[in-house]
């Protein structure tokens, strides 16, 4: 045990330059500044937000409750090129953890998300409508929103399995349902929470969250056309594997499947 701890400590000490090179992490607690509100009293999420690249979105939820199929997909990542390297849209939820700022425009019946990265947009209706019935599964899926107190809750279904969750190569299936909870917790911070509910790949849902700082006042969204000059793709340099280069060390294990709770019948 002691030697294991020493190994971990020594390993950690090997990367001082790496940790020094990281930008300072954003604060993890609200800074106490007042939450702006709209005329109808809701917290106003509007603004340009400086989201950052989250390399391993599952970091605080590990070990993940893999099913056998989920574990297989996780380990199989070294046989596939990251879809975003080929300029395929990051999809939901990765659009929220990719780099570059995004803008929220909050209206009484909808909330519009404009993402600089790969020019994604999402129109999230909050007027009580249901999911669409007949559209094909897509990279961004089918999202509907509702207000739960001060939180905008977005539920997304009808996703393809062609996107990944992050640069670490965490995966999802086409059974994925994503629940996002967005809250403005101060004048300068959004709280973001995502729940990954994917019964094909995970035996139970898992949830992660963090704060996103507001962008400097002078920032505007810029053009980001992934295919404009993607020489890595056009010159044939793309290689399989997760972008963060992480290896699969064999420590992740599949969890025994847990029966999903069925709705109980009223007597």
């Amino acid at each position, binding site marked *: 045990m002691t030697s294991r701890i020493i190994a971990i400590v020594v*390993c950690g000490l090997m990367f001082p330059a790496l940790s020094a090179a990281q930008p300072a992490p954003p604060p993890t607690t609200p800074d106490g500044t007042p939450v702006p509100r709209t005329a109808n009293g809701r917290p106003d999420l509007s603004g340009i937000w400086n989201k950052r690249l989250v390399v391993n979105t599952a970091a605080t939820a590990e070990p993940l409750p893999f099913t056998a199929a989920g574990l297989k997909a996780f380990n199989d990542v070294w046989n596939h090129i990251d879809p975003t390297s080929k300029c395929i849209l990051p999809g939901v939820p990765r659009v929220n953890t990719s780099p570059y700022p995004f803008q929220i425009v909050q209206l009484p019946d909808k909330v519009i998300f404009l993402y600089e990265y790969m020019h994604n947009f999402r129109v999230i209706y909050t007027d009580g409508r249901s999911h669409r019935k007949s559209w094909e599964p897509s990279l961004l899926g089918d999202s509907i929103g509702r207000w739960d107190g001060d939180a905008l809750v977005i539920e997304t279904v009808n996703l393809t399995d062609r996107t990944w969750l992050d640069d670490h190569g965490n995966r999802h299936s086409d059974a994925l349902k994503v629940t996002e909870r967005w809250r403005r917790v101060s004048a300068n911070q959004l709280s973001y929470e995502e729940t990954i509910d994917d019964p094909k790949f995970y035996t139970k849902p898992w949830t992660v969250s963090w704060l996103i700082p507001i962008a400097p006042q002078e920032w505007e969204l810029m053009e980001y056309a992934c295919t*404009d000059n993607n020489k890595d793709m056009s010159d044939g340099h793309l290689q399989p594997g*997760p972008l963060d280069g992480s290896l699969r060390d064999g420590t992740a294990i599949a969890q025994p499947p847990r029966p999903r709770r069925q709705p109980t019948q009223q007597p």
Partner: protein
Amino acid sequence: MRTRLIALVCAATAIAYAPPAAAHHSFAAQFDGDKPVVLKGVVTKVDWRNPHIWVYLDVHEADGKVTKWECEGGAPNALTRQGWSRENLKLGEELTVDGWRAKDGTNTCNARTWKLANGQPVLAGSSNANAGGAGR
């Protein structure tokens, strides 16, 4: 056994992180972290486009031969927000690039730093997001 595993993973991570992984594509897929290169050349073209800028150089060898190089830099949007622009690299200007060579042996590099003839560093930030630069 577990300790050996940790050491192994640690060593593998050290390899993967020297230099740290890049963002839009895997650095290790295209460039060799064990093949650093320093190039002194003249700027012939600057491609300030997404997802990464590319700078083209004529490098004058000791024997008088000129070789053409192309080097990948940071993400234009991030560089712009840091206050850099293509004006920082003028055509015909002398530039020293410190970076890593491509694995495929072509005259391609991933730049870590760019310095003008007077030693002034420009375009801080590489395509390597984890180096605190203007990645992806």
